[in-house]
């Protein structure tokens, strides 16, 4: 009986999942008529089968809207572009696990916002208030961004990174993997144009930006890339000074915060390093763990400050053999 029951359990599992051959149904029914244990097992699996069917049906109810989103993405090739540089907004809105862009923004805020908290009493003589002013006054900046835990499956540390160019009127993000550029997204807020280049597919797209889009980018830009906005955002965090260290040959003074209040993380560590000589940020690092126990890291480095980013300098050149989308 026991070996029969073992085989019958397999058949019951096959029955509820729709893979039991017709030829075995009679044998199964005969056994169930005689064996209360197996009848109980069958009842339990059938009850679970109903739950599973309902469970997946609930997920299925949004299929049409998902397809619509995909079609919009494909037709406009915008959502992926938006994901490239506006990953922040989209992933935050969609998922509790996202957080990378929030973290990145907070990182910069930590660096710049710590200014106010430390005041003029720093060990080394870095005047943190001046750091914030320097950043605010910088007409343009370029930096490298690397991270893990990103929702973008193409962001794999350390082989992938982004180079971000940012000024009040133009922004550009170049995405690299294994040293090769594979995606460029460029916005000119004055001319109200956007350019998307998929180097890996030899495609590009140029489109006009709507007023709404420009408005959102300006507000997002203020929130995520404007140093003064980031400073204001960070002032609430508690932090402490770090000992000096040399980073890429530059003597730096650092500040660290582990204050996660108000942030969507279970734990959060942000460190910012500023050049003692120039008073500009050199390195920003964060590590955060979200409610799903996923570890996120983000590193901003290779900063270039006070860069004059005009559209002529920043707008990507489209190779002649690329095809328009």
């Amino acid at each position, binding site marked *: 009986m026991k070996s029969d029951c073992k085989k019958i359990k397999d058949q019951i599992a096959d029955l509820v999942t729709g893979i039991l051959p017709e030829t075995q149904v009679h044998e199964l029914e005969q056994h169930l008529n005689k064996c209360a244990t197996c009848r109980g097992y069958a009842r339990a699996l059938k009850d679970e089968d109903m739950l599973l069917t309902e469970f997946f049906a609930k997920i299925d109810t949004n299929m049409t809207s998902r397809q619509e989103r995909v079609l919009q993405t494909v037709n406009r090739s915008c959502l992926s572009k938006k994901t490239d540089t506006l990953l922040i907004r989209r992933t935050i809105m*969609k998922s509790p696990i996202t957080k990378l862009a929030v973290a990145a923004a907070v990182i910069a805020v930590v660096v710049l916002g710590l200014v106010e908290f430390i005041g003029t009493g720093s060990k080394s003589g870095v005047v943190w208030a001046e750091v914030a002013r320097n950043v605010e006054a910088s007409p343009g900046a370029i930096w490298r961004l690397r991270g893990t835990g990103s929702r973008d499956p193409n962001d*794999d540390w350390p082989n992938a990174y982004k180079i971000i160019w940012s000024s009040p009127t133009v922004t550009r993000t170049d995405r690299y993997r294994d040293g090769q550029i594979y995606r460029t997204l460029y916005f000119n807020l004055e001319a109200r144009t956007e350019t998307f280049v998929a180097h890996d*597919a030899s495609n590009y797209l140029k489109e006009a930006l709507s007023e709404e889009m420009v408005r959102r980018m300006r507000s997002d830009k203020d929130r995520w890339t404007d140093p003064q906005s980031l400073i204001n955002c960070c002032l609430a965090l508690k932090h402490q000074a770090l000992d000096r260290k040399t980073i890429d040959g530059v003597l730096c003074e650092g500040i660290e915060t582990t204050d996660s209040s108000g942030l969507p993380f279970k734990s959060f560590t942000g460190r910012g390093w500023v050049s003692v000589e120039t008073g500009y940020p050199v390195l920003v690092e964060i590590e955060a763990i979200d409610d799903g126990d996923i570890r996120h890291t983000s590193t901003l480095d290779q900063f270039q400050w006070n860069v004059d980013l005009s559209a002529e300098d920043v707008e990507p050149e489209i190779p002649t053999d690329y095809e328009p989308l």
Partner: protein
Amino acid sequence: MNESLDESVVRACRQGDKTAYAVLVKRHYRHVFAMCLGVLGNVHDAEDIAQEAMLKGFLKIKKLDKGEQFEIWILRIARNLCFDLLRRRKRIKAITIKQPMQPGQRTVEDHNLQESIRRLPQELRVPLTMCYFDGKNAKTIAEKLNISHSGACQRIREARKQLHELLRERKNNEKRL
């Protein structure tokens, strides 16, 4: 019939007809989503990766030689993207960490079910998800996963049995609390 339809649609896409790709999306997105859901174990990730896969398919469609193989091709793209994501999260096996109740999960039962499904090994979770989400057809599942029919049946059966044990364990644990 479906294969030859895919072939003509893919041909149109390769000639620059963006609207033709909508046909492929409507026909195959659901299967791609089901695959991603099985590999990744949660709806949010599955949505993102499935979308990424469909977009990638659109951008790279000229590299697809045989249009009738679009489904297998796009599923492979999706699967690779899923593995990329899991690799970045430094996970090798199925997601086993506890997740909080997700929006849309109206009952504790749903939550328990999702958590138990997530605890299944990936090689069992994928066919099980495809079975319940995408139609209980082992032959189709076998084709999509590029495994034998008997292999697909075996995995589905084992998944179902293990899921039962996981649900029973949860129920017993709740009683003890």
